[in-house]
Protein backbone atom coordinates (compact mmCIF):
# COMPACT_ATOMS: atom_id res chain seq x y z
CA UNK A 1 0.00 0.00 0.00
CA UNK A 2 2.58 2.46 1.16
CA UNK A 3 4.80 1.66 -1.77
CA UNK A 4 1.90 2.29 -4.08
CA UNK A 5 1.08 5.64 -2.63
CA UNK A 6 4.65 6.73 -3.04
CA UNK A 7 4.55 5.81 -6.68
CA UNK A 8 1.43 7.82 -7.41
CA UNK A 9 2.89 10.75 -5.48
CA UNK A 10 6.03 10.83 -7.54
CA UNK A 11 4.75 12.38 -10.79
CA UNK A 12 3.00 15.12 -8.81
CA UNK A 13 6.19 15.68 -6.89
CA UNK A 14 8.04 16.03 -10.16
CA UNK A 15 5.49 18.47 -11.58
CA UNK A 16 5.58 20.66 -8.48
CA UNK A 17 9.34 20.55 -8.57
CA UNK A 18 9.21 21.59 -12.21
CA UNK A 19 6.86 24.51 -11.53
CA UNK A 20 9.18 25.90 -8.87
CA UNK A 21 12.15 25.41 -11.12
CA UNK A 22 10.46 27.33 -13.93
CA UNK A 23 9.64 30.18 -11.56
CA UNK A 24 13.26 30.28 -10.53
CA UNK A 25 14.45 30.20 -14.10
CA UNK A 26 12.13 33.05 -15.07
CA UNK A 27 13.78 35.22 -12.43
CA UNK A 28 17.27 34.33 -13.56
CA UNK A 29 16.20 34.76 -17.18
CA UNK A 30 14.91 38.28 -16.54
CA UNK A 31 18.15 39.34 -14.92
CA UNK A 32 20.19 37.88 -17.75
CA UNK A 33 17.94 39.40 -20.38
CA UNK A 34 18.13 42.87 -18.88
CA UNK A 35 21.88 42.64 -18.43
CA UNK A 36 22.52 41.48 -21.97
CA UNK A 37 20.08 43.98 -23.42
CA UNK A 38 21.62 46.88 -21.52
CA UNK A 39 25.13 45.91 -22.56
CA UNK A 40 24.21 45.46 -26.20
CA UNK A 41 22.25 48.68 -26.42
CA UNK A 42 24.51 50.69 -24.15
CA UNK A 43 27.85 49.99 -25.80
CA UNK A 44 27.40 51.54 -29.28
CA UNK A 45 27.05 55.11 -28.05
CA UNK A 46 30.03 54.72 -25.74
CA UNK A 47 32.02 53.41 -28.68
CA UNK A 48 31.03 56.34 -30.85
CA UNK A 49 31.47 59.04 -28.22
CA UNK A 50 34.50 57.42 -26.56
CA UNK A 51 34.52 56.10 -23.01
CA UNK A 52 36.50 58.97 -21.52
CA UNK A 53 34.55 61.84 -23.12
CA UNK A 54 31.33 60.04 -22.24
CA UNK A 55 32.10 59.40 -18.58
CA UNK A 56 34.11 62.53 -17.89
CA UNK A 57 32.62 65.07 -20.26
CA UNK A 58 31.17 67.96 -18.36
CA UNK A 59 28.62 69.06 -20.92
CA UNK A 60 25.43 67.28 -21.80
CA UNK A 61 23.78 68.96 -24.79
CA UNK A 62 22.07 66.11 -26.51
CA UNK A 63 19.65 68.16 -28.57
CA UNK A 64 21.92 71.04 -29.53
CA UNK A 65 20.97 72.25 -33.01
CA UNK A 66 23.37 75.10 -33.78
CA UNK A 67 26.47 73.49 -32.35
CA UNK A 68 27.72 69.95 -32.26
CA UNK A 69 25.70 67.94 -29.64
CA UNK A 70 27.70 66.95 -26.57
CA UNK A 71 27.29 63.79 -24.54
CA UNK A 72 29.25 64.10 -21.32
CA UNK A 73 27.56 62.49 -18.33
CA UNK A 74 29.91 63.58 -15.58
CA UNK A 75 27.23 65.98 -14.23
CA UNK A 76 24.80 63.07 -13.86
CA UNK A 77 27.32 60.75 -12.28
CA UNK A 78 28.45 63.34 -9.79
CA UNK A 79 24.89 64.38 -9.03
CA UNK A 80 23.93 60.77 -8.33
CA UNK A 81 27.01 60.25 -6.18
CA UNK A 82 26.63 63.51 -4.26
CA UNK A 83 22.90 63.06 -3.91
CA UNK A 84 23.32 59.55 -2.55
CA UNK A 85 26.13 60.55 -0.20
CA UNK A 86 24.07 63.47 1.06
CA UNK A 87 21.08 61.24 1.66
CA UNK A 88 23.30 58.81 3.54
CA UNK A 89 24.85 61.55 5.64
CA UNK A 90 21.42 62.82 6.64
CA UNK A 91 19.49 59.56 6.69
CA UNK A 92 21.89 57.11 8.31
CA UNK A 93 22.27 58.80 11.70
CA UNK A 94 18.54 59.28 12.00
CA UNK A 95 17.78 55.77 10.77
CA UNK A 96 20.44 54.24 12.98
CA UNK A 97 19.24 55.91 16.14
CA UNK A 98 15.64 55.18 15.31
CA UNK A 99 16.54 51.49 14.86
CA UNK A 100 18.29 51.28 18.20
CA UNK A 101 15.32 52.93 19.82
CA UNK A 102 12.79 50.67 18.10
CA UNK A 103 14.74 47.46 18.56
CA UNK A 104 15.99 47.98 22.09
CA UNK A 105 14.54 50.87 24.02
CA UNK A 106 10.98 51.61 22.98
CA UNK A 107 8.08 50.44 25.14
CA UNK A 108 6.03 47.75 23.43
CA UNK A 109 3.18 49.95 22.24
CA UNK A 110 5.33 52.77 20.98
CA UNK A 111 7.48 50.22 19.20
CA UNK A 112 4.45 48.86 17.38
CA UNK A 113 3.36 52.35 16.39
CA UNK A 114 6.82 53.25 15.14
CA UNK A 115 7.21 50.05 13.20
CA UNK A 116 3.94 50.53 11.38
CA UNK A 117 4.94 54.13 10.64
CA UNK A 118 8.15 52.85 9.11
CA UNK A 119 6.23 50.34 7.01
CA UNK A 120 3.89 53.08 5.84
CA UNK A 121 6.83 55.26 4.92
CA UNK A 122 8.17 52.39 2.84
CA UNK A 123 4.82 52.00 1.13
CA UNK A 124 4.35 55.61 0.05
CA UNK A 125 4.81 55.82 -3.73
CA UNK A 126 7.77 57.91 -4.79
CA UNK A 127 5.59 60.27 -6.80
CA UNK A 128 3.96 61.29 -3.53
CA UNK A 129 7.35 62.00 -2.00
CA UNK A 130 8.07 64.10 -5.07
CA UNK A 131 4.78 65.93 -4.80
CA UNK A 132 5.17 66.80 -1.14
CA UNK A 133 8.77 67.77 -1.79
CA UNK A 134 7.67 70.07 -4.61
CA UNK A 135 4.97 71.73 -2.56
CA UNK A 136 6.73 72.00 0.79
CA UNK A 137 10.45 71.48 0.46
CA UNK A 138 11.20 73.44 -2.71
CA UNK A 139 9.51 76.68 -1.60
CA UNK A 140 10.93 76.13 1.87
CA UNK A 141 14.48 75.97 0.56
CA UNK A 142 13.90 79.00 -1.63
CA UNK A 143 12.81 81.09 1.33
CA UNK A 144 15.17 79.65 3.91
CA UNK A 145 18.32 80.07 1.86
CA UNK A 146 17.10 82.97 -0.20
CA UNK A 147 17.90 81.36 -3.53
CA UNK A 148 16.06 82.02 -6.82
CA UNK A 149 14.90 78.42 -7.21
CA UNK A 150 14.42 75.86 -4.46
CA UNK A 151 14.37 72.95 -6.89
CA UNK A 152 17.91 71.78 -6.25
CA UNK A 153 20.30 69.05 -5.25
CA UNK A 154 19.60 69.90 -1.62
CA UNK A 155 15.87 69.29 -2.05
CA UNK A 156 16.61 65.95 -3.68
CA UNK A 157 19.00 64.99 -0.87
CA UNK A 158 16.38 65.68 1.77
CA UNK A 159 13.72 63.70 -0.09
CA UNK A 160 16.13 60.80 -0.64
CA UNK A 161 17.20 60.85 3.00
CA UNK A 162 13.60 60.34 4.03
CA UNK A 163 12.98 57.72 1.37
CA UNK A 164 15.89 55.55 2.47
CA UNK A 165 14.89 55.63 6.14
CA UNK A 166 12.54 52.62 5.95
CA UNK A 167 15.10 50.32 4.33
CA UNK A 168 17.77 51.36 6.81
CA UNK A 169 15.49 51.07 9.82
CA UNK A 170 13.87 47.77 8.88
CA UNK A 171 17.10 45.94 8.18
CA UNK A 172 18.92 47.44 11.16
CA UNK A 173 16.08 46.60 13.52
CA UNK A 174 16.11 43.01 12.30
CA UNK A 175 19.86 42.83 12.84
CA UNK A 176 19.66 44.38 16.30
CA UNK A 177 16.84 42.11 17.35
CA UNK A 178 18.85 39.08 16.27
CA UNK A 179 21.60 39.90 18.77
CA UNK A 180 21.44 37.10 21.35
CA UNK A 181 19.94 38.28 24.61
CA UNK A 182 22.76 36.46 26.41
CA UNK A 183 25.24 39.12 25.29
CA UNK A 184 23.09 41.86 26.69
CA UNK A 185 22.48 40.01 29.94
CA UNK A 186 26.22 39.55 30.37
CA UNK A 187 26.81 43.25 29.93
CA UNK A 188 24.04 44.28 32.31
CA UNK A 189 25.26 41.79 34.89
CA UNK A 190 28.65 43.51 34.82
CA UNK A 191 27.01 46.75 35.81
CA UNK A 192 26.69 48.41 32.40
CA UNK A 193 23.53 50.47 31.91
CA UNK A 194 20.99 49.60 29.26
CA UNK A 195 22.15 52.31 26.88
CA UNK A 196 25.81 51.39 27.37
CA UNK A 197 24.90 47.79 26.69
CA UNK A 198 23.17 48.61 23.45
CA UNK A 199 25.94 50.77 22.12
CA UNK A 200 28.88 48.67 23.28
CA UNK A 201 27.50 45.18 22.78
CA UNK A 202 24.34 45.03 20.67
CA UNK A 203 25.36 47.50 17.97
CA UNK A 204 28.84 46.01 17.44
CA UNK A 205 27.31 42.54 17.34
CA UNK A 206 24.84 43.71 14.69
CA UNK A 207 27.32 45.76 12.72
CA UNK A 208 27.30 43.63 9.57
CA UNK A 209 23.53 43.84 9.39
CA UNK A 210 23.60 47.57 9.97
CA UNK A 211 26.22 47.97 7.24
CA UNK A 212 23.99 45.96 4.93
CA UNK A 213 21.12 48.30 5.82
CA UNK A 214 23.19 51.30 4.82
CA UNK A 215 24.20 49.70 1.54
CA UNK A 216 20.56 48.91 0.86
CA UNK A 217 19.80 52.58 1.47
CA UNK A 218 22.53 53.55 -0.99
CA UNK A 219 20.97 51.29 -3.59
CA UNK A 220 17.55 52.75 -3.00
CA UNK A 221 18.86 56.32 -3.24
CA UNK A 222 20.89 55.84 -6.40
CA UNK A 223 18.05 54.09 -8.18
CA UNK A 224 15.32 56.57 -7.31
CA UNK A 225 14.03 58.62 -10.25
CA UNK A 226 10.53 59.99 -9.92
CA UNK A 227 10.78 61.86 -6.63
CA UNK A 228 14.15 63.42 -7.38
CA UNK A 229 13.06 64.47 -10.85
CA UNK A 230 10.22 66.45 -9.30
CA UNK A 231 12.33 68.36 -6.78
CA UNK A 232 15.74 68.73 -8.38
CA UNK A 233 15.00 71.12 -11.24
CA UNK A 234 16.12 68.56 -13.80
CA UNK A 235 18.78 70.62 -15.57
CA UNK A 236 22.07 69.08 -16.68
CA UNK A 237 24.32 71.28 -14.52
CA UNK A 238 27.40 70.23 -12.65
CA UNK A 239 26.14 69.57 -9.13
CA UNK A 240 26.00 72.27 -6.49
CA UNK A 241 23.84 72.24 -3.39
CA UNK A 242 21.49 74.94 -4.70
CA UNK A 243 21.93 74.11 -8.36
CA UNK A 244 19.22 72.54 -10.48
CA UNK A 245 20.57 69.12 -11.25
CA UNK A 246 19.88 65.91 -13.09
CA UNK A 247 20.60 62.38 -11.81
CA UNK A 248 21.59 59.32 -13.84
CA UNK A 249 18.06 58.02 -13.45
CA UNK A 250 16.32 61.24 -14.35
CA UNK A 251 18.61 61.83 -17.30
CA UNK A 252 17.28 58.64 -18.85
CA UNK A 253 13.69 59.23 -17.85
CA UNK A 254 13.41 62.82 -18.99
CA UNK A 255 14.69 62.42 -22.56
CA UNK A 256 13.75 58.90 -23.51
CA UNK A 257 10.29 59.70 -24.81
CA UNK A 258 11.44 62.08 -27.54
CA UNK A 259 14.94 60.85 -28.26
CA UNK A 260 16.38 59.31 -31.36
CA UNK A 261 19.68 58.31 -32.95
CA UNK A 262 22.83 58.80 -30.97
CA UNK A 263 20.95 60.62 -28.22
CA UNK A 264 18.75 57.59 -27.64
CA UNK A 265 21.76 55.27 -27.67
CA UNK A 266 23.52 57.52 -25.18
CA UNK A 267 20.55 57.23 -22.85
CA UNK A 268 20.96 53.47 -22.92
CA UNK A 269 24.60 53.96 -22.07
CA UNK A 270 23.60 56.05 -19.07
CA UNK A 271 21.32 53.23 -17.98
CA UNK A 272 24.27 50.87 -18.34
CA UNK A 273 26.41 53.08 -16.11
CA UNK A 274 23.61 53.14 -13.53
CA UNK A 275 23.37 49.38 -13.79
CA UNK A 276 27.08 49.03 -13.07
CA UNK A 277 26.67 51.20 -9.97
CA UNK A 278 23.80 49.04 -8.74
CA UNK A 279 25.82 45.89 -9.38
CA UNK A 280 28.69 47.23 -7.31
CA UNK A 281 26.31 48.08 -4.50
CA UNK A 282 24.81 44.62 -4.67
CA UNK A 283 28.25 43.09 -4.43
CA UNK A 284 28.89 45.19 -1.34
CA UNK A 285 25.59 44.08 0.14
CA UNK A 286 26.38 40.42 -0.45
CA UNK A 287 29.75 40.93 1.13
CA UNK A 288 28.21 42.27 4.34
CA UNK A 289 25.46 39.67 4.48
CA UNK A 290 27.93 36.88 3.95
CA UNK A 291 30.20 38.20 6.65
CA UNK A 292 27.17 38.35 8.93
CA UNK A 293 26.45 34.69 8.33
CA UNK A 294 30.01 33.65 8.97
CA UNK A 295 30.25 35.61 12.20
Amino acid at each position, binding site marked *: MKQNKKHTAKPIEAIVHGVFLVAGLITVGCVLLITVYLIISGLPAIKEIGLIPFLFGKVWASTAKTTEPSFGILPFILTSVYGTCGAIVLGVPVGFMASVYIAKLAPKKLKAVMQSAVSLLAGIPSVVYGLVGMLVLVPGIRKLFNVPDGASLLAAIVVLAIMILPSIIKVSVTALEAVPKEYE*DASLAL*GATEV*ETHFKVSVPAARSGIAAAVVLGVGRAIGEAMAVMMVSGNAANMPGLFESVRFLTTAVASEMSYSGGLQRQALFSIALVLFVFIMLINAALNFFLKRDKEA
Partner: protein
Amino acid sequence: MEANEKSILSVKELCLWYGNHQALKNINIDIPKNSITALIGPSGCGKSTFLKTLDRMNDLIPDVKITGSVEYKGEDIFAPGVDVSELRRQIGMVFQKPNPFPMSIYDNIAYGPRTHGIRNRAKLDDIVEKSLRGAAIWDEVKDRLRKNALGLSGGQQQRLCIARALAVEPDVLLMDEPTSALDPISTSKIEELAMQLKEQYTIVIVTHNMQQAVRISDNTAFFLLGELVEYGKTEEMFSQPTDKRTEDYITGRFG
Protein backbone atom coordinates in the same frame (compact mmCIF):
# COMPACT_ATOMS: atom_id res chain seq x y z
CA MET B 1 21.43 28.83 59.91
CA GLU B 2 23.66 29.43 62.82
CA ALA B 3 23.31 33.04 63.79
CA ASN B 4 27.01 33.54 64.46
CA GLU B 5 27.96 33.11 60.80
CA LYS B 6 28.33 36.45 59.13
CA SER B 7 25.81 36.75 56.33
CA ILE B 8 26.40 38.96 53.30
CA LEU B 9 22.94 38.56 51.79
CA SER B 10 19.87 38.44 53.90
CA VAL B 11 16.53 37.72 52.26
CA LYS B 12 13.29 38.28 54.15
CA GLU B 13 9.77 37.36 53.13
CA LEU B 14 10.64 37.62 49.47
CA CYS B 15 7.76 37.07 47.04
CA LEU B 16 7.93 37.53 43.31
CA TRP B 17 5.24 37.52 40.65
CA TYR B 18 5.54 37.37 36.88
CA GLY B 19 2.21 39.00 36.07
CA ASN B 20 -0.26 36.84 37.97
CA HIS B 21 2.05 33.91 38.35
CA GLN B 22 3.77 33.78 41.72
CA ALA B 23 7.23 32.37 41.16
CA LEU B 24 8.70 32.92 44.63
CA LYS B 25 6.73 32.45 47.84
CA ASN B 26 7.92 33.98 51.06
CA ILE B 27 11.59 33.14 50.85
CA ASN B 28 13.72 33.69 53.94
CA ILE B 29 17.39 32.93 53.70
CA ASP B 30 20.71 34.25 54.99
CA ILE B 31 23.73 33.62 52.85
CA PRO B 32 27.02 33.53 54.76
CA LYS B 33 30.17 35.22 53.52
CA ASN B 34 32.97 33.24 51.85
CA SER B 35 30.92 30.14 51.42
CA ILE B 36 29.29 28.26 48.59
CA THR B 37 25.53 28.04 48.75
CA ALA B 38 23.90 25.59 46.39
CA LEU B 39 20.34 26.06 45.18
CA ILE B 40 18.69 22.81 44.14
CA GLY B 41 15.21 21.83 43.07
CA PRO B 42 13.27 20.66 40.04
CA SER B 43 13.01 22.77 36.87
CA GLY B 44 10.70 25.72 37.13
CA CYS B 45 10.78 25.91 40.93
CA GLY B 46 12.21 29.44 40.88
CA LYS B 47 15.95 28.94 41.37
CA SER B 48 16.97 31.20 38.50
CA THR B 49 14.33 33.71 39.43
CA PHE B 50 15.68 33.83 42.97
CA LEU B 51 19.25 34.20 41.75
CA LYS B 52 18.32 37.02 39.39
CA THR B 53 16.53 38.83 42.19
CA LEU B 54 19.77 39.05 44.14
CA ASP B 55 21.44 41.31 41.56
CA ARG B 56 18.20 42.84 40.32
CA MET B 57 18.46 41.30 36.87
CA ASN B 58 14.70 40.88 37.05
CA ASP B 59 14.25 44.64 36.81
CA LEU B 60 14.16 44.54 33.05
CA ILE B 61 11.38 41.99 32.74
CA PRO B 62 8.08 43.77 32.38
CA ASP B 63 5.29 42.98 34.85
CA VAL B 64 7.53 41.67 37.61
CA LYS B 65 6.34 42.47 41.11
CA ILE B 66 8.53 41.92 44.14
CA THR B 67 7.68 42.21 47.85
CA GLY B 68 9.81 41.57 50.90
CA SER B 69 13.42 42.59 51.22
CA VAL B 70 16.90 41.58 50.18
CA GLU B 71 19.68 43.08 52.22
CA TYR B 72 23.18 43.12 50.81
CA LYS B 73 25.74 44.03 53.48
CA GLY B 74 22.89 45.35 55.55
CA GLU B 75 21.42 47.62 52.85
CA ASP B 76 18.12 46.94 51.13
CA ILE B 77 18.87 46.47 47.42
CA PHE B 78 15.38 47.63 46.47
CA ALA B 79 15.58 50.89 48.38
CA PRO B 80 15.07 53.94 46.18
CA GLY B 81 18.35 55.54 45.20
CA VAL B 82 20.28 52.29 45.08
CA ASP B 83 22.83 52.36 42.27
CA VAL B 84 21.90 49.23 40.35
CA SER B 85 25.07 49.33 38.23
CA GLU B 86 27.19 49.40 41.36
CA LEU B 87 25.12 46.62 42.90
CA ARG B 88 25.64 44.47 39.80
CA ARG B 89 29.33 45.25 39.85
CA GLN B 90 29.54 43.92 43.40
CA ILE B 91 27.28 40.95 42.75
CA GLY B 92 28.52 39.24 39.58
CA MET B 93 26.69 36.65 37.55
CA VAL B 94 27.73 33.65 35.49
CA PHE B 95 25.08 32.22 33.22
CA GLN B 96 24.01 28.73 32.30
CA LYS B 97 25.14 29.00 28.72
CA PRO B 98 28.65 30.42 28.35
CA ASN B 99 28.07 33.85 26.84
CA PRO B 100 31.32 35.59 25.98
CA PHE B 101 30.88 38.71 23.87
CA PRO B 102 31.79 38.30 20.19
CA MET B 103 35.01 40.19 20.81
CA SER B 104 38.61 39.35 21.64
CA ILE B 105 39.42 37.56 24.88
CA TYR B 106 41.11 40.71 26.12
CA ASP B 107 38.15 42.94 25.33
CA ASN B 108 35.78 40.51 27.02
CA ILE B 109 37.66 40.82 30.29
CA ALA B 110 38.30 44.55 29.91
CA TYR B 111 34.66 45.26 29.14
CA GLY B 112 33.55 45.53 32.76
CA PRO B 113 36.47 47.63 34.02
CA ARG B 114 36.14 49.94 31.01
CA THR B 115 32.46 50.34 31.71
CA HIS B 116 33.34 51.41 35.20
CA GLY B 117 35.74 54.02 33.93
CA ILE B 118 39.17 52.39 33.81
CA ARG B 119 40.96 53.55 30.66
CA ASN B 120 44.61 53.18 31.57
CA ARG B 121 46.17 50.57 29.34
CA ALA B 122 48.68 49.19 31.84
CA LYS B 123 46.01 48.94 34.49
CA LEU B 124 43.67 47.11 32.12
CA ASP B 125 46.47 44.72 31.15
CA ASP B 126 46.95 44.01 34.84
CA ILE B 127 43.29 43.39 35.48
CA VAL B 128 42.99 41.11 32.47
CA GLU B 129 45.90 38.97 33.56
CA LYS B 130 44.78 38.85 37.18
CA SER B 131 41.22 37.92 36.28
CA LEU B 132 42.26 35.23 33.83
CA ARG B 133 44.62 33.78 36.41
CA GLY B 134 41.86 33.96 38.98
CA ALA B 135 39.65 31.90 36.72
CA ALA B 136 42.43 29.39 36.03
CA ILE B 137 42.48 30.01 32.30
CA TRP B 138 45.46 32.34 31.91
CA ASP B 139 47.87 29.66 30.74
CA GLU B 140 45.48 28.49 28.08
CA VAL B 141 44.80 31.90 26.56
CA LYS B 142 47.78 34.12 27.33
CA ASP B 143 49.13 33.76 23.80
CA ARG B 144 45.84 34.51 22.09
CA LEU B 145 44.38 37.42 24.02
CA ARG B 146 43.60 39.24 20.79
CA LYS B 147 41.74 36.30 19.29
CA ASN B 148 37.97 36.13 19.29
CA ALA B 149 36.60 34.57 22.45
CA LEU B 150 34.07 32.56 20.47
CA GLY B 151 36.95 30.38 19.26
CA LEU B 152 37.41 28.88 22.73
CA SER B 153 35.88 25.59 23.81
CA GLY B 154 32.70 25.63 25.89
CA GLY B 155 34.54 24.96 29.12
CA GLN B 156 37.10 27.64 28.37
CA GLN B 157 34.35 30.06 27.46
CA GLN B 158 32.69 29.49 30.79
CA ARG B 159 35.91 30.09 32.69
CA LEU B 160 36.39 33.19 30.57
CA CYS B 161 32.95 34.34 31.69
CA ILE B 162 33.97 33.75 35.29
CA ALA B 163 37.13 35.77 34.66
CA ARG B 164 35.04 38.51 33.09
CA ALA B 165 32.87 38.58 36.20
CA LEU B 166 35.96 38.70 38.45
CA ALA B 167 37.41 41.63 36.51
CA VAL B 168 35.04 44.10 38.14
CA GLU B 169 36.09 42.89 41.60
CA PRO B 170 32.77 41.64 42.91
CA ASP B 171 32.13 40.27 46.37
CA VAL B 172 29.49 37.79 45.39
CA LEU B 173 29.32 35.49 42.39
CA LEU B 174 25.96 34.13 41.32
CA MET B 175 26.20 31.10 39.05
CA ASP B 176 23.18 29.67 37.30
CA GLU B 177 23.89 26.06 36.41
CA PRO B 178 27.33 27.05 35.13
CA THR B 179 28.34 23.52 34.21
CA SER B 180 25.15 22.14 32.74
CA ALA B 181 26.35 22.76 29.18
CA LEU B 182 29.83 21.39 29.79
CA ASP B 183 31.65 18.07 29.59
CA PRO B 184 32.80 16.31 32.80
CA ILE B 185 36.39 17.51 32.61
CA SER B 186 35.40 21.15 32.17
CA THR B 187 32.83 20.67 34.89
CA SER B 188 35.38 19.48 37.42
CA LYS B 189 37.66 22.38 36.48
CA ILE B 190 34.88 24.82 37.25
CA GLU B 191 34.05 23.04 40.48
CA GLU B 192 37.67 23.24 41.60
CA LEU B 193 37.70 26.87 40.64
CA ALA B 194 34.56 27.58 42.64
CA MET B 195 36.12 26.03 45.72
CA GLN B 196 39.22 28.21 45.32
CA LEU B 197 37.17 31.31 44.73
CA LYS B 198 35.21 31.03 47.92
CA GLU B 199 38.32 32.13 49.83
CA GLN B 200 37.73 35.57 48.40
CA TYR B 201 34.17 35.56 47.20
CA THR B 202 30.76 34.44 48.27
CA ILE B 203 29.26 32.02 45.77
CA VAL B 204 25.65 31.14 45.18
CA ILE B 205 25.31 28.37 42.63
CA VAL B 206 22.23 26.82 41.07
CA THR B 207 22.77 23.21 40.17
CA HIS B 208 20.78 20.35 38.82
CA ASN B 209 23.46 17.99 39.82
CA MET B 210 23.09 16.72 43.38
CA GLN B 211 26.62 15.32 43.48
CA GLN B 212 27.90 18.71 42.52
CA ALA B 213 26.05 20.31 45.41
CA VAL B 214 27.52 17.73 47.78
CA ARG B 215 31.03 18.11 46.37
CA ILE B 216 31.36 21.84 46.49
CA SER B 217 28.76 23.56 48.64
CA ASP B 218 28.76 24.44 52.31
CA ASN B 219 25.04 25.06 52.49
CA THR B 220 22.18 23.91 50.35
CA ALA B 221 18.75 25.38 49.77
CA PHE B 222 16.03 23.19 48.33
CA PHE B 223 13.33 24.96 46.33
CA LEU B 224 10.02 23.49 45.28
CA LEU B 225 7.21 25.28 43.44
CA GLY B 226 8.51 28.69 44.44
CA GLU B 227 8.95 27.82 48.09
CA LEU B 228 12.14 27.33 50.04
CA VAL B 229 11.48 23.93 51.54
CA GLU B 230 14.68 23.38 53.41
CA TYR B 231 17.95 25.20 53.95
CA GLY B 232 20.94 24.05 55.94
CA LYS B 233 24.42 22.61 55.98
CA THR B 234 24.93 20.53 52.88
CA GLU B 235 26.19 17.44 54.73
CA GLU B 236 23.28 17.45 57.11
CA MET B 237 20.72 18.07 54.42
CA PHE B 238 21.93 15.21 52.29
CA SER B 239 22.38 12.79 55.19
CA GLN B 240 19.33 13.68 57.26
CA PRO B 241 16.85 15.83 55.41
CA THR B 242 14.19 17.11 57.78
CA ASP B 243 11.46 17.53 55.20
CA LYS B 244 9.91 14.55 53.45
CA ARG B 245 9.87 16.44 50.13
CA THR B 246 13.61 17.12 50.36
CA GLU B 247 14.24 13.48 51.02
CA ASP B 248 12.13 12.48 48.02
CA TYR B 249 13.99 14.90 45.80
CA ILE B 250 17.52 14.03 46.83
CA THR B 251 16.85 10.35 46.66
CA GLY B 252 15.61 10.88 43.13
CA ARG B 253 11.97 10.10 43.70
CA PHE B 254 10.89 13.11 41.67
CA GLY B 255 12.35 16.00 39.73
